[in-house]
């Protein structure tokens, strides 16, 4: 309600730049039309908002899909006529069909991982924060940046169109393992729907590469005077490593997809061998290996989960330090652990394949390397805890989500130690345990990082505040709800309940969780409804929220708060400010905070 008051007094950070540009659309000379400003914009801030809004649209769709399949899981033997009204033949007689259930699960996974948590999260915040926090007027190549968004947009439209083809969208799980994904005769979803899925994903890879190269180039080359790498806020470090991961691993995914396209359309046998399809007969393919695809897929697939979580870690480090009014503990260790995670993330992919028929000896290396990742992760958690210790904490909505992020990351991360150990994975693999694990550590934590970022930088994005009461309701319901949904799933997984089952009622081993599934589904629907509250808050506040009246509402040290309240294209109307210190001088020498632009005083000790 009153974030304004935190730093009503003119802050040190405001000493740079002019105050008069608050309402002007920047001091730039080029003429902007509606199209160049809002659609084919090359301003990184507008592109960030485009990524954000597109990501939010997909989050709603992906969330809605999860509500639909949760209804099926909770009430496998009931009919809801409204579903037929809304979904037509997807829910004949008011009951979701097996085919549409699998399509929903698959598309939910695909869009949440790629469109929401990759494009929506790192696309938004890398674009928005990198130039603002390193002190650049825009990305290294604004044009490529614009292309990155439009490739993503096209990819999203193609994915959307696959929902409307006659044979349905792809339905073989988001990992798209061949032969199921390669042979239309094995599943209707593997016909046209899979072609569209592959085209969409290929364009998405292009988008990621264009974006990633740009982020790397900007961080390395376009830092303002005095902004050495070790003075960068941790957000930028996180985005930097994220971009490096993406640039190195997405091409491998694309190569895997290209081989799949060949197997599907041109009669090759990269992934196919010894196959007899019911009703079709023996296929001509021999000599391929379906496991090859899994290697190629998970070579991206594993770094991908770090592509999702690293930006969250960066955002949380920044928001947590700011709102604890205390420097982030162990800045160098934070960078070191990000680096270690980035390196290790390339060396653990086969832990997704312990039971795929992979050589067990090879598997043992992946056990070792996988559990090693827990070390840098533990460092990060302890550093966050120490950052809170003896701070002076302000529970802004962004801060609440940061604390929620750490809690989720601990809960979901610890079960990674279970799953990374192959001798346990052999029991838990592909059960609800893994669903609980990755939703907590990657899904919920990732989206919490995103919410923390949105609430924290909303004033910078739109020059207004979001409503705090709605934000608090949103946080507490989502936080409690996420635990209520995913915590009990661990028990289902320990009982061996397999994932991706349409109906458990015929299974003597798994049907004892009927009541629990109803509970989980009801909580999921409530949590989904609360996200709509957030959406409302987001769009309503854009036009009606309280206006930001001071340049630096959170009392932050970083450069983005030295720009005018509504920065134009080019970010700073005058000179780009020079940086004299690291980003975390909070509570130093009895001062609440010292902005990065403040020169080091005589006799002051510095950290970086």
């Amino acid at each position, binding site marked *: *309600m009153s974030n304004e008051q935190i730093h009503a007094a003119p802050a040190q950070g405001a000493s740079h730049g002019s105050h008069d540009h608050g309402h002007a659309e920047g001091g730039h000379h080029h003429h902007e039309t509606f199209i160049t400003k809002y659609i084919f914009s090359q301003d990184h801030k507008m592109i960030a908002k485009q990524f954000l809004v597109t990501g939010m649209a997909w989050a709603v769709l992906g969330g809605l899909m999860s509500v639909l399949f949760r209804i099926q899981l909770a009430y496998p033997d009931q009919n809801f006529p409204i579903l037929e009204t809304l979904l037509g033949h997807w829910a004949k007689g008011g009951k979701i069909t097996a085919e549409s259930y699998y399509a929903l699960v698959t598309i939910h996974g695909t869009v949440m991982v790629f469109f929401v948590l990759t494009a929506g999260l790192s696309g938004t915040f890398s674009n928005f924060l990198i130039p603002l926090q390193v002190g650049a007027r825009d990305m290294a190549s604004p044009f490529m940046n614009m292309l990155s968004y439009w490739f993503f947009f096209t990819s999203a439209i193609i994915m959307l169109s696959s929902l409307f083809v006659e044979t349905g969208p792809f339905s073989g799980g988001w990992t798209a393992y061949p032969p199921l994904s390669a042979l239309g005769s094995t599943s209707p979803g593997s016909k046209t729907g899979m072609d569209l899925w592959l085209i969409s994903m290929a364009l998405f890879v292009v988008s990621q590469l264009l974006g990633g190269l740009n982020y790397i180039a900007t961080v390395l080359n376009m830092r303002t005077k005095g902004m050495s790498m070790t003075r960068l806020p941790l957000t930028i470090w996180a985005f930097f490593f994220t971009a490096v991961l993406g640039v190195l691993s997405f091409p491998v995914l694309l190569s895997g997809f290209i081989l799949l396209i060949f197997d599907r359309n041109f009669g090759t046998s990269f992934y196919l061998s010894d196959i*007899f399809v019911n009703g079709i007969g023996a296929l001509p393919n021999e000599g391929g290996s379906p496991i090859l695809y899994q290697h190629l897929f998970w070579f991206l697939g594993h770094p991908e989960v770090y592509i999702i979580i690293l930006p969250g870690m960066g955002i949380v480090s920044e928001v947590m330090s700011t709102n604890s009014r*205390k420097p982030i503990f162990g800045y160098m260790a934070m960078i070191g652990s990000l680096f270690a995670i980035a390196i290790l993330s390339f060396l653990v992919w086969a832990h997704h394949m312990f039971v795929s028929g992979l050589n067990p000896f090879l598997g043992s290396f992946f056990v070792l390397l996988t559990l090693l990742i827990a070390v840098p992760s533990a460092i990060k958690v302890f550093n966050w805890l120490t950052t809170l210790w*003896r701070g002076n904490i302000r529970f802004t909505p962004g801060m609440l989500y940061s604390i929620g992020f750490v809690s989720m990351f*601990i809960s979901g991360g610890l079960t990674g130690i279970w799953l990374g150990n192959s001798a346990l994975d052999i029991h838990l693999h592909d059960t609800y345990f893994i669903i609980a694990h990755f939703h907590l550590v990657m899904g919920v934590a990732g989206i919490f990082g995103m919410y923390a970022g949105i609430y924290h930088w909303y004033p910078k994005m739109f020059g207004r505040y979001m409503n705090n009461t709605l934000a608090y309701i949103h946080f507490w319901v989502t936080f409690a709800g996420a635990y*209520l949904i995913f915590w009990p799933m661990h028990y289902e997984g320990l009982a061996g309940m397999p994932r991706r*089952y349409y109906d458990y009622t015929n299974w*003597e*081993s798994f049907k004892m969780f009927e009541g629990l599934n109803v509970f989980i589904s009801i909580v999921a629907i409530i949590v989904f409804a609360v996200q709509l509250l957030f959406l409302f808050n987001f769009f309503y506040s854009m036009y009606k929220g309280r206006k930001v009246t001071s340049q630096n509402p959170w009392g932050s040290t970083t450069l983005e708060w030295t720009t005018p309240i509504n920065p134009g294209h080019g970010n700073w109307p005058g000179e780009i400010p020079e940086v004299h210190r690291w980003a975390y001088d909070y509570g130093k020498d009895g001062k609440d905070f010292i902005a990065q632009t403040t020169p080091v005083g005589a006799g002051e000790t510095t*950290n970086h």
Partner: protein
Amino acid sequence: MSTFFIIAVLVLLFVVIFQIAKASEYVAILKGEEKARKHDNKINGFLMIAFLVLGLIGVYYCHEILKGRVLSESASIEGEKVDEMLNITLAVTGIVFIITQVLLFWFAYKYQESEKRKVFFFPHNNTMEVVWTVVPAIVLSILVVIGLRNWFIFTGDAPKESLIVEVTGRQFGWIFRYPGKDNQFGKRYFRNIDPSNNNLGLVWADNKELNQKADPATFDDIVNDNTMYVIKGRPVKLIIGSRDVIHDVGLVHFRLKMDAVPGIPTTLWFTPKYTTAEMKTKTGNSNFQYEISCNQMCGNGHYSMKGIIEVLEEDEYYAWIAKQKPYYYGAFPEKDPSAAPPTPGGVPSSSPDSAASITTASVIQAGGGQNNKLK
């Protein structure tokens, strides 16, 4: 109608929440924003500690009501090691979970904004960093060692006396093959598959086109669908494959699983501890069955791809196998010694799904039951 009612109620609820949120914003302005903010901070600080307490109670409560539904004792000797490891890992991660979550929420509550507190400028401390790098590394190494020891047992060679069964997944069911009297699996080739009488593509006839010679080892192989029979206390080795897409042999009660990959055979072995009948009394569930669940997405019928494992006492097993006819006779009824002399219009000896009809209680005359014992 009721749906519209529900939607109307939800919309109304949204409007009410929104109005409250808006009103509180106005009240905050009237009261003085700084004061209102501090008030909110106190509420959220309290909620932090409340969440911790309620959360820990919730974790305990959840465990109490669900622990009985999680699988009971492992039904295989190897699975005991999985359970043991689960307990060790649970203890280690459980301790870390409680400590870190308590610290997180306790710090959040304790160090909420207060005018009296002076922030402690504490940017780094090398000793602390080293401690929490080294301690987790040591603990994890221990877990890795335990895990790998078990892993090499699970994936190592099966004991020599193992019963061997070949498992083949298809959309959407399981086919099992036993080597028969010669204790040898005959050759198979996927182009020979004929759904009417040769589900696995056994090479039991000469085929010039494919350059194949009949493999006599196929003649006594026993094939059946859906249910696999194994012996209590005797290790069983599964040779796993797939006929079409990737499936997975999920053995929840035995705590193991392995993918079924077309073109690449995989293996898995375990030692059943209890017969199905014993498990029925142990679990108190008269419907108890050892179920094989497919654990790898394999198409729209994935959820229904169930197989059954019957664990039998040794003598029961041999009584069962003695009744089985080699699959070969299903395709070539004229070769079946028990069916001779063939009477036209007599009992059909091959059914479309599974040729080795389990229901026919015809004992194989040549050899007799006990001679089927594997060496």
